């Protein structure tokens, strides 16, 4: 097992280092093969580890931070949760690597791309496999760095680089809270081992547990783009689409959910923390769903839907439905990666155009993209019997089982969100793939953002720096590997429900059985079977209603009218388009004052204040010295008379002293 784990981690790392150091000098094909090969080999090792898995194991490779009682070795912990996530990560990332080979085939910076992608996988695996919190933090920051570098991959565009920076800084704010939580836990228990800390829940005062839980929640909010730190994810779409699929949909953004689930035995003891987690998740899910309804950039729709779906997962954790959250995490990874990759195909085919109002009719032109994309959309919308349907329902059932006004309200919010999700998902599907393509853009990508009237509308186009063959109206031929990579994800998304079928069908779900033995996962009240069936029927109806509404609005004769109206700007659309104007709020509250204070401290504090005072002192002393300097004429005579005078004074003194 130790060997498998070592390989799972080391292979992506080695691949990354190989590409970083040698990728530029070797032929492109070598780099691609190495990058994909290491991930699939890691997947193979994960499968072997799965085959040989019989209970949680802790494996230690060596010491890392070791000073007195602070011990954080390089130790991994493989249990059911980390194993299933490892399998998912290596598999989905493997597919995305293959897809990237096609997507990046014209980009000269492939070595940097694959190096970062591989190192990202390494960091993500460290995150899920770490046995102690500092090591988890290593993975946590590592994925943050890769995300930063990959969002700004096409760095010559200022907005791409800025988006990367925003992501890095925003998540770092959350990480700070997480870091404080780590050192606090160390102070309380003298240990940073996750397994050890999870047994400490009862020994730590409740108020401290609550604070710790809130700190961890803040950390998770940063990474998982939950309110109020959600603003970075929509901008993060500036990166290449496979990056969005891998980092900002399938893996990294769910790290916050993983962290909360991992530490649940410790922090779940506090009702306040659970309520706060559930509230954060529920409100974020709703918030992002409303924003997604008005977006016109294909990738931003998906970004907001990711925020919303992670909101569901966080809600599930807050409700104690950890298995449900993990279940949704897995299915979401499949179908959201699928949607992003499908969107990437469509965008590539349309010469890197992302404005959905400029799309349409792609169903006929790109059938190999349409059908998998539709499968993903069905999952996202929670269409009955798809994977997304079962996993979302598992969370809502968990919320329902909690009871009480708070969770009742959150259940209602969750159901409304489900309806919104279905609506915006099919709005996207119908606008992009149905109907006819509307007024193609003039060459050069101008004329954008007419209707949007807001700054984010300008972000719609993210042209890569290398010139594309821009033949208007003609679709680029997609590399075969890009469409092929969609198929396994589509199948997994559709059939993901098999992983954990509801127990009323007579069997315990596979995941329920597999994850049930992890501390914390067995808990959470179970909804009654009848209640669950009712809930599923309601959810199914809501999903179908949303689909129907979208069908009514965006297909057939009403399509043109609806699109024209939306392009002109619906009342309140600007507010939703800009994510409730959180960016403006933060700009006014934090960023501008920050810049002002920084400059003020420099100019007024350092230069005028401290230095000014000291320079003034120096000048004063210099002037003081200048007074007697006037006596120094530089002539010998002055000195001589001075000398003689001095001698006379001394003599006179001596005479005066010796005289009786």
């Amino acid at each position, binding site marked *: 097992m130790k060997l498998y784990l070592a390989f799972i981690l080391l292979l992506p790392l080695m691949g990354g280092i190989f590409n*970083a150091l040698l990728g530029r000098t070797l032929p492109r094909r070598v780099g691609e093969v190495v990058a994909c090969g290491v991930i699939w080999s890691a997947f193979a090792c994960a499968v072997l580890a799965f085959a040989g898995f019989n209970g949680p194991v802790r494996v230690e490779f060596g010491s*890392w*931070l070791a*000073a007195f009682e602070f011990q954080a070795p390089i130790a991994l912990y493989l249990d059911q949760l980390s194993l299933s996530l490892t399998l998912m990560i290596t598999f989905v990332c493997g597919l995305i690597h293959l897809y990237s080979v096609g997507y990046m085939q014209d980009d000269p910076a492939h070595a940097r791309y694959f190096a970062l992608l591989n190192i990202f996988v390494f960091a993500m695996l460290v995150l899920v496999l770490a046995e102690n919190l500092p090591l988890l933090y290593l993975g946590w920051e590592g994925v943050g760095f890769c995300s930063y570098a990959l969002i700004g991959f096409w760095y*010559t565009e200022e907005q791409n680089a800025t988006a990367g920076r925003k992501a890095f800084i925003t998540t770092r704010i959350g990480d700070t809270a997480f870091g404080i939580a780590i050192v606090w836990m160390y*102070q309380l228990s003298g240990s940073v081992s996750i397994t050890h800390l999870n047994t400490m829940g009862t020994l730590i005062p409740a108020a401290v547990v609550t604070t710790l839980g809130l700190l961890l929640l803040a950390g998770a909010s940063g990474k998982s783009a939950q309110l109020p730190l959600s603003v970075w994810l929509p901008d993060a779409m500036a990166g290449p689409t496979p990056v969005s699929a891998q980092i900002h949909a399938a893996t990294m953004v769910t790290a916050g959910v993983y962290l909360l689930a991992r530490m649940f035995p410790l922090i779940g003891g506090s009702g306040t923390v659970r309520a706060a987690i559930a509230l954060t998740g529920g409100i974020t899910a709703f918030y992002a769903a409303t924003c997604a309804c008005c977006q016109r950039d294909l990738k931003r729709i998906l970004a907001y839907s990711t925020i919303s779906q992670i909101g569901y997962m966080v809600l599930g954790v807050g409700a104690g439905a950890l298995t449900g959250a993990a279940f949704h995490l897995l299915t979401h990874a499949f179908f959201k990666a699928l949607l992003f990759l499908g969107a990437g195909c469509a965008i590539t085919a349309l010469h890197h155009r992302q404005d959905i109002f400029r799309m349409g009719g792609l169903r006929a032109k790109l059938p190999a993209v349409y059908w998998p994309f539709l499968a993903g959309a069905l999952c996202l919308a929670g269409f009955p019997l798809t994977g997304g349907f079962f996993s979302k329902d598992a969370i809502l059932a968990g919320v329902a089982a909690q009871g009480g006004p708070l969770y009742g309200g959150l259940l209602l919010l969750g159901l409304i969100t489900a309806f919104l999700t279905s609506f915006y998902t099919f709005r996207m599907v119908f606008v992009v793939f149905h109907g006819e393509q509307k007024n193609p853009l003039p060459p050069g990508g101008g004329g954008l953002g007419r209707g949007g009237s807001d700054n984010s509308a300008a972000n719609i186009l993210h042209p890569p720096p290398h010139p594309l063959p821009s033949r208007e109206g003609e679709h680029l031929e997609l590399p075969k590997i890009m469409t092929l990579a969609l198929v396994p994800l589509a199948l997994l998304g559709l059939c993901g429900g098999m992983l954990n079928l509801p127990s009323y069908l007579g069997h315990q779900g596979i995941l329920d059985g597999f994850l049930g033995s992890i501390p914390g996962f067995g808990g959470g009240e179970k909804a009654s079977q009848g209640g669950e069936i009712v809930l599923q029927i309601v959810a199914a109806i809501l999903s179908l209603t949303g689909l129907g509404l979208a069908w009514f609005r965006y297909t057939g004769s009403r399509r043109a009218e609806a699109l024209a109206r939306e392009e002109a700007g619906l009342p309140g659309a600007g507010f939703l388009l800009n994510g409730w104007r959180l960016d403006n709020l933060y700009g006014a509250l934090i960023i501008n004052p920050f*810049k002002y204070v920084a400059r003020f401290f420099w100019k007024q504090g350092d230069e005028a204040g*401290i230095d000014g005072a000291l320079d003034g002192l120096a000048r004063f002393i210099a002037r003081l010295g200048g007074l007697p300097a006037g006596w120094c004429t530089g002539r010998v005579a002055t000195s001589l008379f001075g000398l003689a005078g001095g001698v006379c004074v001394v003599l006179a003194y001596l005479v005066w002293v010796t005289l009786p």
Partner: protein
Amino acid sequence: MMADLHLLTVLVFFPLAGCLLMLPAWKCPAAARSLALGVMSGELLLALWLYASWQGLAALKPALPGYLLVEDAPWISAFGIRYTLGLDGLSLLMVMLTAFSFCIALAVSWRAVGEKVGLFLALLLAMETGIMGVFLALDLALFYLFWEVMLIPMFFLIGIWGHGRRIYSTVKFFLFTMFGSLLMLLAIIALHLLHARQSGVTTFGLFELIATPLPAGTQLWLFAAFFLAFAIKFPLFPLHTWLPDAHTDAPTAGSVILAGLLLKTGSYGLIRFGYPLFPQAAQTLTPLIYTLAIAGIIYASLVAFAQEDMKRLIAYSSIGHMGYVAIGIAAWEPVALSGSIIQMANHGVTTGALFAMVGMLDERAHTREIGAFGGLWGKIPLWSFFFLIFSMASVGLPGLNNFVGEFLVLAGTFTKAPLAAGLAFVGIVLTLVYMVRLVQEVVFQVERRPLPLADLDRREICVLAVLALLVVWMGVHPAPLLELIHGPVRLLTGGVP
């Protein structure tokens, strides 16, 4: 056996001998450079050899508990001044850092310094003697001697080979440090006299003076004098304003040594002399140190964000990073102190590397203005690659070296002063903000001014690759270094050997 070799004396005075040997090579830059390289790499090899054999030395049980090597001889007996040098794990780490930093400083100024090469190298070597002495001296008078010796070459280094307002900067640097160290000299003499009055023994020996019982008030005043000297070197807010000027106007080698070593002498002095000599006074002033350190971290990070000169920005980042060292020392707790010491070494490597890189850019573009650059990844990818590594190390990315020190400091400090540690965490975000801004404006985006830039040559790649390997090695496997300082830290914090 090894004590008979007078290795510590060799360690201290070998560079000075090299400095004298420089006289015949005065006129011939090539010979002077080879000579300096030989001396400095010999020094580095000696330091590394000591490191390789430290466990064997520890087993030998030398004269002082916890020390690996001690040399002791009477010097000025009238005042009880002795020539006492001692090497423990803490000193050894600093000695290695010194020897290494001087090699880096030599390598980066190999071609950058073209005039008065002999003098330049002689000053470097003289300074190496001074700094080695500071890290090894165990007699307060000897310590003070070395403390002043290391200043003078730096004064000339900035004054002669500097840029910009170099005279202003070097005088400012000199006045700041002199002001502090004169007060420290007074405190040393006062301590000496108090000890002599109480015990009748005239001595400047550290361990004898530690045992002096002092009334609380006296102790407070003496500690304040020591602390002022060290705080100026650190530098702690608001005594820091000499640093940005000195760094900005110093030649690259000067910046590397300033950041890598001179700042460390402040923290080293506080650990070796300040706290052990005046424990109660230090305890009393701990809240003040926390406050200054945290104010410094936040203030310097904010000011760094507003900078327009790359070197100035990194200089301010130094103030922030040294704030963590100060917090760890103030906590005076084993984990935090280990973190502080490791952070001293880490900061020397990372910031030294960043200064070296800015120096390389300056050599090519003849400007350090952030607004002049942009899109360097496309033009000089190797430089950009290394710059990204070092700036990520500087922001404390786990897996690279700074994280180890900062995290241990914060973990240890939290057990003593949760509020201070929590506020210091905020500084980590601020560090990221200004560093990412620097990276973005210099490395990313598009070129803003057409500059004739060539990528790194082989010498520069070698230097930076060594530094980068060190950054990664210290970040991934700091255990040997932590083990090295384990014993000294335990002794300092009141444990038994």
